[in-house]
């Protein structure tokens, strides 16, 4: 199964992911209604895209009193049945990442969570720096492992790995 993977150090803070998300869902460019949001420490030029992590044990679902939240077992996304949602915002409170959003659509507040675009996330498509990827679970950290490999290989050449 594919998982959504974020590498913050690769995020240059272009905000295109926010625009891609809001346009896909609401035909509007606006970070305020996006389900992915860039937060930044400007002085360090450090950015992190924050979105639903698709927790296996989702706190938001546990907190939901109306049964509006459910898992899409094809993608792992937490979805909202807006007809059942009573707008209590307990899920907003429960999410440890701040990834459950309250947005205003047609002058009405609603809760909003990343739905992984049904398995083809728009935000990933526009992320040229590959801070966002949607990859098979086994591929996560493959790059870090290959970096380790290369580092070790270099070290081995210098004889540093010899006992």
């Amino acid at each position, binding site marked *: 199964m594919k998982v959504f993977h974020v590498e913050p150090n690769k995020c*240059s803070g272009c*905000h295109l992911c926010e625009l891609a998300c809001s346009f896909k869902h609401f035909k509007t460019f*606006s970070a305020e209604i996006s389900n992915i949001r860039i937060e930044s420490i400007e002085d360090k030029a450090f950015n992190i895209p924050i979105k639903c992590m698709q927790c296996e044990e989702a706190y938001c679902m546990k907190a939901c009193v109306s049964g509006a939240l459910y898992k899409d077992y094809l993608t792992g996304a937490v979805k909202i049945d807006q007809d059942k949602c009573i707008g209590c915002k307990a899920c907003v409170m429960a999410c440890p990442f701040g990834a459950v959003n309250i947005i205003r659509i047609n002058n009405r507040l609603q809760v909003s969570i990343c739905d992984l675009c049904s398995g083809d996330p728009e935000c990933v498509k526009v992320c*040229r720096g590959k801070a966002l990827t949607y990859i098979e679970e086994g591929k996560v950290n493959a790059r870090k492992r290959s970096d380790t490999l290369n580092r070790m290989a270099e070290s081995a050449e210098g004889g540093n790995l010899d006992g």
Partner: protein
Amino acid sequence: MLPTMPIDILRINLSNGEIVHDKIDDVSLIKKFIGGRGIATYMLLKELDPEDSPYDESSSIIFAPGALTGTAMPSSGRTSILFKSPATGKFFKTNVGGHFGAQLKFAGYDLLVVKGRAEKPVYIYIEDDRVEIKDASFLWGKDVRETNALIREIHDDPHIQTACIGPAGENKVVYASIQVSIYNAAGRGGGGAVMGDKNLKAIAVRGTKGIKIAQPERYFKALEVIYGKMNSVPGVKPLSDYGTSIGVESTNAVGAFPVKNFQQGSIDNIKFLTGQYLVEGGFLKRKISCYSCPVACHRFVTVDSGKYRGTYTGGPEYETLNAFGGGCGTTDTATVIKAGELCNIYGLDVISTGGCIQWLMECWQRGVISKEEADGLDLSWGNNDTIVELVEKIAYRKGIGDLLAKGLKEASEELGRESYKWAIQARGLEQSRVETRSAFAYALAFAVSSRGPDHLNTETLAEFGGDSEARRVIKDITGSEEYAYPHTTDKRAEIVRWHEDIYAASDCIGLCAFPTTAQFWVSEYDIAEIFSAATGIEMDADMIMKAGRRIITMERIYNGILGHTREDDVLPYRMMNEYQNGALHKNAINSKEMLDLMKDEYFKLHSWDMKTGLPTRDIMKYLGLEEFIEKASSYYDLA
């Protein structure tokens, strides 16, 4: 709301505190001037009073994000800032990246026009429809970093974007920048001094409105074409990997990297000034994007050891690496980063600051300035401590820094001692770090630019034919790839004019000039298509380029009214009178004869008056600028 339609204007008068929301929904105006820079130029020309100095209360400063800023058009997050320049006394357009423009658009404004002068320091706070002029006494004296942090803290909102000045702007250094964070500067022309004169410390903006698209399907089809080109042209990856410093080593290799105040064209140990070394030496930490830019050519660097440990800033860009590196006779990486950091937090233009320091160093080399006059500093080339210390002296106008803060034109006049001969400025603007004696389209572009000698109205990089796309563009303009050769005067006028047009159009939609004039993945056809789809206002490529020409022509009328003629289209003394040593191209010089030859062709191409070099009645009529005929004719000899 749709991009740019109608044009929402926020007018603020700091003298009487008046705040007015204005709208223009005249489609014909948009078709003529596109948006952003175009509309702002039109407004400035309309209200121009030649008697006003840049520091008069009635002078405006206009902040103009592009028509497509805030949409997913890649690299379209830029903002033009326009004003009458305290450095040149003439028309000035600067342009800055970062995230300020997008916030202004999301707040619902296409243009912000600020007039007047506040009695005490103020900042403007904009949160969608809520607009306030607020006391800034607690911000006055603070640097750019502190100012940003305090504003965000006091409004409890980390997403606020600001355009602010540092101490240099408060002290009216004539090349004080307007900073959009520490990473992006509207550096040139002294916009920071204009804000300082208005007692305007900052403009803080937070916008939460959304932007819609008139024809979404067509818009995304156009985007797909643009993305396809972005991913296939050869220039994007190197820029993304190494930033603008990618050009340092090759420029040095051909002897066109200005060293020691343009006395030489290359320097030893260049490797320490390259983008590759920023990576290898551990300085580069991350890449930074402007709003909606997937290329991310900006860098975030830190210095982690040595005397400047703890330094952190954006860049260094090519211009910084030359202005404080080669230009000052050093290749010390940490010194360049430190000097760049100080410019970013004090709010100083890097190019002019470096240019002034080099001029002083050459005064020392020539023995025309004493140690006493120079506050006891040792001004030898490559004296790293001196370079860094002078940046601070300039920002605070301390000691010799007060002389340098006036800019090279005035400083060299005041000092005398023939120092104008090595003051690398023309019309009050210090030349950017381009060896125009080795690049003739650049030479012409710099001479005729409304700003003065720099590359940010007309980047003619294509003349070097550096890659297949550059050669294609030269062929499209001139009919043959053979003109992708910078040491000839042939076809330079055509090359310059095409670049002016597309550069102006790029600014109008908020697009960075790199996609249109450096890596060539956005053409005038792409601009026309995406603009039409986004706004629902139909424009074709010819109309886009003609709008660009209209803007250049209006700038020329503006300057003409202020007394500019073809005699003022010059380059710094050194470029026009001294041969450059060490260039591949022998006897490299931008002589008056050579410039006149190119200027003649250029004016002919524009159908401007050959004698004055100014727009004529006929061309004004042709471009639909009749309304300025009367104004122009009462101030200059209108042919």
